[in-house]
């Protein structure tokens, strides 16, 4: 197993190399000059040339790429042209917010999607199936930005139950920085008021982000469960008089989990894609907002840094899924 993990991780550097090359090519193919945007609207040619020199944009492209790689090898993601600070520092500032939101959405996906799928499978063809199917289908067909704005309208504007946007109420100071995750940091520092505020602020963006992933998870759980339910060992379990909860969870769900896990792992990429829109709607100061602003101003280092980070996360999540297969099913050996 350890050898397998090491082997998979060893594939990461060449993968990052390929991704960085593609990204470098794509960002530099955009027919625009970021130096002009940085120098300001009415900047003269001399000012623009100065910016270009400062960020090494006056060198030939292959040389720029090699310099980037050399820095990357040392763990330096370059300097953002827009914020004029190290991209690594920027990622450290903005990524925890995204991590918090994505993790919450992942949790919601699993905690809601799996039971929804189970209920649908158990009551197949009945009312509960219909309701669960309807709920997951509407989740699949409603665009995130429409759903996000709708939830704001209903739960914030009309009902006044939940805050509109942000990670904390305006004017609140965040908890002492430990992990950058407000929920975790306020728990660690025992700051209950901030914890409540952070949790309440998480609700709407989490539900919005989880929506799109909920449907595939529920549907996969349903079909996997349906298949398992017809197996002989399930009949045996019933015949033995095992309590229904144990039949469904221990015998059913555990065996249905492998395909569900695959789908949940894939949802991570869906979540990381959706988080860009959700962060924009809910003024959630994370990687999504940072990247969108980076893309608009063609901030090469910021775009590449964010994308490389997402690549690493994706690879690690996929690896974790593969490892979990072996944990869930002892027959699987690497």
């Amino acid at each position: 197993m350890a050898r397998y993990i090491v082997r998979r991780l060893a594939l990461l550097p060449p993968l990052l190399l390929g991704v960085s090359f593609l990204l470098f090519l794509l960002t530099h193919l955009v027919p625009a000059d970021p130096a002009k945007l940085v120098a300001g609207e009415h900047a003269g040619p001399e000012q623009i040339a100065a910016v270009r020199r400062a960020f090494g944009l006056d060198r030939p492209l292959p040389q720029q790429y090699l310099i980037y790689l050399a820095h990357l090898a040392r763990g330096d993601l370059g300097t953002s042209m827009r914020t004029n600070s190290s991209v690594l520092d920027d990622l450290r500032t903005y990524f925890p917010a995204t991590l918090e939101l994505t993790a919450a959405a992942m949790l919601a996906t699993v905690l809601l999607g799996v039971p929804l799928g189970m209920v649908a499978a158990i009551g197949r063809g009945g009312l509960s199936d219909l309701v669960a199917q309807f709920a997951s289908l509407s989740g699949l067909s409603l665009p995130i930005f429409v759903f996000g704005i709708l939830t704001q309208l209903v739960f914030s504007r009309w009902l006044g139950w939940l805050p509109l946007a942000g990670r904390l109420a305006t004017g609140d100071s965040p908890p002492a920085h430990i992990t950058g995750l407000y929920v975790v940091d306020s728990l660690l520092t025992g700051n209950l008021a901030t914890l409540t505020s952070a949790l309440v602020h998480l609700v709407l963006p989490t539900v919005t982000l989880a929506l799109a992933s909920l449907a595939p998870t529920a549907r996969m759980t349903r079909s996997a469960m349906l298949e398992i339910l017809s197996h002989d060992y399930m009949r045996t379990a019933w015949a033995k008089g095992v309590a229904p909860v144990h039949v469904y969870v221990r015998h059913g769900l555990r065996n249905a989990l492998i395909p569900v896990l695959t789908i949940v792992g894939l949802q991570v990429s869906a979540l990381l894609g959706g988080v860009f829109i959700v962060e924009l709607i809910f003024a959630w100061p994370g990687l999504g907002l940072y990247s969108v602003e980076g893309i608009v101003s063609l901030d090469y280092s910021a775009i590449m840094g964010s994308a490389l980070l997402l690549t690493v996360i994706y690879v690690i999540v996929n690896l974790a899924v593969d490892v979990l297969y072996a944990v869930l099913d002892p027959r699987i050996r690497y």
Partner: protein
Amino acid sequence: MGRAAGSGRVSRRRFLRGLAAGGAVLGAGAAGLADVFRTAPAAAAGAPADTLIVAQDTAVQTFDPQIVYDNTVRITRGIYEPLVGLQGSTPRIVPKLVTSWSSSPDIKQWTLKLRSGVKFHDGTPFDSDAVKVTMERLIKINRGFAYAFKPLVASVETPDAQTVRVNLNAPDASFIAKLAAISGNLVVSPKAVREHAAGDDLAQGWLKEHAVGTGPYMLASYDKGAQQVVLTQFAGYWGGWAGPHVRRIIFKIVPEASTQRLMVERGEADIVTIVAPDLIDALAKEPGITISESPTMRIFYIAMHCQREPLKDVKIRQAISYAFDYEGAKQAIFNGKLAPLNGPLPDNDPAHLAPADKPYRFDMQKAKQLLGESSRPNGGFTLSLFLFQGDPTFRKAAEILQAHLKELNIGVSIQELSSSVLLEKAGKPETAPDLLPVRNYPDYADPSAMISATFGKDAWGTAGWNFSFYANDRVEQLLKQANETTNQPQRLRMFRDAQRIIVQEAAAVFIGTLINRVAMRSTVKGFLYNPLLGNTFDLYRIYKS
């Protein structure tokens, strides 16, 4: 059997007990949650009367007063002050940190007398050294507004603590107006610059996230994680704190317009910075919300490429100017909220043209007649038009023009591009579109700023903002002469003459001067908007009732 029955009874009891317990837990949890839901947003909504919350649309890149050249000026102008300011919502220049000024007869030297008793937030006094450090810093960093000073300023002298003498490379009657610009010469504490300089960075690194100015508010905190900037009153402000003011100003970064709208509706924000006319109209109908309407110096027009066939032919440009439905556009794009524009200068500029100076009205007959006299009497060509992505006002203007040009047998192909790509293409005459709808504002309150940036020969493409690639020797001569005299009536005459030539040659379709509409809670009072840039307002004067 008995056992089975017994165990069945027990399990049912257990089940019911469990159900009851579970219900109780759920109920308590729900009640607790309901409390959370009820209290948390209520605490968020409705900021105290001494705190102003502004929903800001763009993230802060830097607070550096010599670099900021974007919407962050809204914040920095509360912390730093310019040497001269603008009176209220007018473009009239009034003293600020400089109380009086005079120029040498050749207008190559300006002497500035400084206000006494002014202190920086770090306690050091404001003096001529601060002005020198600021101006030299701007020129050396060479970003943003430096373009107007670097070629112009030869040296800065400080004969005494309260006097500054600026020597120029060329006569410039608009120099004082340049000091009132939105950014650039916002005075920074020399002590802060010296103490926090790293190498030769002139403290750029430190001033990115810190600020020491003379303004009414100090930067209390900038929290990147929460995307929130907090300003608090500077007790030692030279203007004093008599009368109503807010104690604290919070800028919350909220990029999404619909979220900003909900925030001001709920009272979570006092002022929002969205600009979409439809959203503002919707907000105008809400109780408790006021829309402040102020004239701006922002002009809205469609640039026409004067250097490329077929628009090189002035007759065709004039025909297009007649084929635009000005009144229809005013209603369709701006719901009637648009001031006139009879030439390059906005309606509230002292040198603006009278309606009689602009012959173009919506007249398809006249348009057909002019096209008939042109090099392409039957039309039969297609013009390219670029749009800045995601701006409905530009799109509507383009579609109105497209519809009427079709009647002249002129096609318009519309292409929407992201601003970075668009600016790159529109920056060069070879790749620029034939038509480009643009909004433009002068960088400083002098007629020369707008005319030379929009139609000057040195301002082609992104070198200025001349997307018409227009050049006229007589116009250049008039602009040069106007900069060589301080005789204001004479200057205004020259600016009007220059504009008449540009209008006669139809370098652009002049559509209107924008009216700035800012949505805010009705409790916000003393809102004074800066006409130069549709982005700033006087934070010092604002208070809440």
